[in-house]
């Protein structure tokens, strides 16, 4: 064999060797459970929202009252880390002489520079993984490009038209005489770091005589959202932590086969977490392992007040998630209809 050929073979072997090391995939079957809806499933828990579930949820609409459950999306609200949102108005046709035709038509439109996980928003199935392993054992490294994901995008989700159940943790903690508030909240709120347990959620359900059903979406009112409403004055406090569900509560909610868990915090789970060496572990449990969505910055105070005044904490959960191809999540608007 000629020396040049030997060199070529050696170089080829080195390239192959380094290449396989650089693109080594994690064994996702060891890290993430399989979806109960099959190996090709990219839909996750919204598979549970069947026509029967939606029809049953429609029975919650008794007088047509609509309760807003999302915050206004506007510059200055608290955002995670380097996330940003910025709107720019285009209004050139308002300039003198710029109107169109005899009817003097003018128009305006916006440029919206924003990341998707801002304001009241849904965490999709491609948002959270373990290493490169995401929901349904998908080795996501093979399914991403510089623009989006080619698996687990929001376009695969089914409808969220189901029953919503509000759990008022402020009331639960007050009733149990273990309420510890935060002075920055104008209305009662649980202190950051408060671990909401399965027993707490069960107590909150019992308070309104509700039993969770498969396909429900649960909205947990902690009062922490009061700090969001005070933006930007309390952004730093809002961002510094949160009351939220712990692992025990997450495990129980998974067993109840809910579709999504929302709360009036930026994270839904408790921060600081129960174990300082675990990072957002409830996100892993709900999204990565079970395809259950997390909805953050849900405005829960109005529904909590409605529930308290009527003695009913259930509602029709109306939320449209855009079919945004390959996105990991998106800001959304929620209305609770009663």
């Amino acid at each position, binding site marked *: 064999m000629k020396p040049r050929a030997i060199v070529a073979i050696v170089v080829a072997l080195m390239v192959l060797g380094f290449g396989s090391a650089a693109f080594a995939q994690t064994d996702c079957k060891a890290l993430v459970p399989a979806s109960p809806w099959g190996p090709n499933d990219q839909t996750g828990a919204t598979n549970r929202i069947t026509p029967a579930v939606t029809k049953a949820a429609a029975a919650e609409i008794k007088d047509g009252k609509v309760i807003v459950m999302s915050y206004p999306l506007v510059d200055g609200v*608290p*955002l*995670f880390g*380097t996330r940003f949102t910025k709107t720019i108005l285009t209004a050139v046709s308002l300039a003198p002489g710029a109107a169109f035709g005899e009817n003097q038509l003018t128009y305006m439109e916006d440029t919206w520079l924003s990341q998707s996980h801002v304001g009241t928003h849904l965490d999709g199935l491609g948002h959270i993984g373990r290493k490169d392993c995401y929901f349904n054992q998908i080795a996501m490294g093979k399914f991403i490009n510089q623009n989006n994901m080619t698996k687990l995008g929001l376009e695969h989700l089914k409808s969220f038209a189901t029953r919503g159940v509000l759990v008022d943790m402020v009331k639960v903690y007050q009733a149990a005489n273990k309420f510890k508030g935060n002075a920055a909240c104008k209305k009662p709120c649980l202190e950051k*770091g408060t671990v909401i347990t399965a027993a707490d959620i069960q107590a909150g359900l019992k308070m309104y005589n509700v039993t969770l059903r498969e396909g429900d979406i649960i909205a947990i009112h902690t009062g922490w959202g009061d700090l969001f409403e005070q933006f930007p004055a309390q952004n730093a406090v809002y961002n*510094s*932590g949160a009351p939220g569900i712990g692992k025990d509560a997450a495990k129980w909610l998974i067993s109840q086969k809910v579709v999504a868990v929302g709360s009036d915090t930026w994270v839904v789970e408790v*921060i*600081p977490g129960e174990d300082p060496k675990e990072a957002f572990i409830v996100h892993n449990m709900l999204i990565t392992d079970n395809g259950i969505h997390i909805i953050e910055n849900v405005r829960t105070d109005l529904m909590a007040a409605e529930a308290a005044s009527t003695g009913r904490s259930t509602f029709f959960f109306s939320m449209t998630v855009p079919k945004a191809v390959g996105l990991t999540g998106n800001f959304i608007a929620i209305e609770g209809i009663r």
Partner: protein
Amino acid sequence: MKQPAPASSPWGRRRSRLRRWAAGLGVLGLLTAGPAPVEAQRRYVVAFANLTEEPGVTVEGTGFTGREIRESFTLAARAHPVEMVFYDNQRDDARAVANAEAGIARKVDLYIQYHRGAANAVVAEKLKAAGIPLLALNYPIPGAPVYTADNLAAGRIAGEALAQFAGRSWRGQAMVAAVIGNLSDTIDRVPERAQGVAEALAQRLPAVRVATLDTKGNPVQIAPLLGKFLAGQPRAKLLLAATDDATALAVKATVEAAGRAQDTAIVSHGVDRSIHGGINDRKEIDPTNRGSIVIGSVAFYLDRYGYDVLPLAMRMLRREAVPPRVATRHTLITAANVFIEYPPYDMN
């Protein structure tokens, strides 16, 4: 010794029936009691008397404050059936004794004492008389188990890290080493850190001389002390162990100003928030800053004391044996593992 009545006697038969009833009730109790034993459901009151909570005052020769230690107990207590009661010893003997008396009056179930001074013996005596178990933090108290930082072990980890770096990067080149910091701080056992560094370097790099640069607690001294040292070593590679993170950052600034950053590797002690941060902080030890000459810092985890100490307290409360001394598991934190050891979770 009194003999039991025979089962055949009327009294014996009655007792036998009573026993069967009791056994039946016991079985019923087991069936209905649920999985948690009664003892596990008991809530305890645990007192923690902190060294000091003076704002901004750091402890143990690190950048951590007493407030961070107290908060770690608050957070760790969430996982245990305990109610925490906090006292501030204010580094004052009289205050420490008064706090212990308050704890006794409150009938706490266990007392964790973080104090250095003659009051510890008095506190121990009073708690013993009241039947309240005592757990010491960082400063041993006779008769009580102690949880403590291990400064010598931490220093060895730092020295080992420097030696490994030297072996990887500067093999065969002239090298000198120095330990810099408040080396006079015997109260916080900082000299033990220096000793650990020197021991590890002597073992791994016996030809390398280890100098000591004592700032005597005055950070302003870092630049002149180090400047003189650098001037005396114009061509040598520099292995520098800082005894705390603030010193490490000042050392880095000094070697950069002297144009010697390329010749320097720094390892620190503490891993406080001045050197690592949240997802948006971009601190010195950060996954996006892997080329830093601060190659790591040895974690002291004072901000996690509660997570280590409360499990010991729980064992004592359950009357289980605990070792007389439990030391912090010090770890070298680098850009490669900082987000594993300290996951960033705050949004700011």
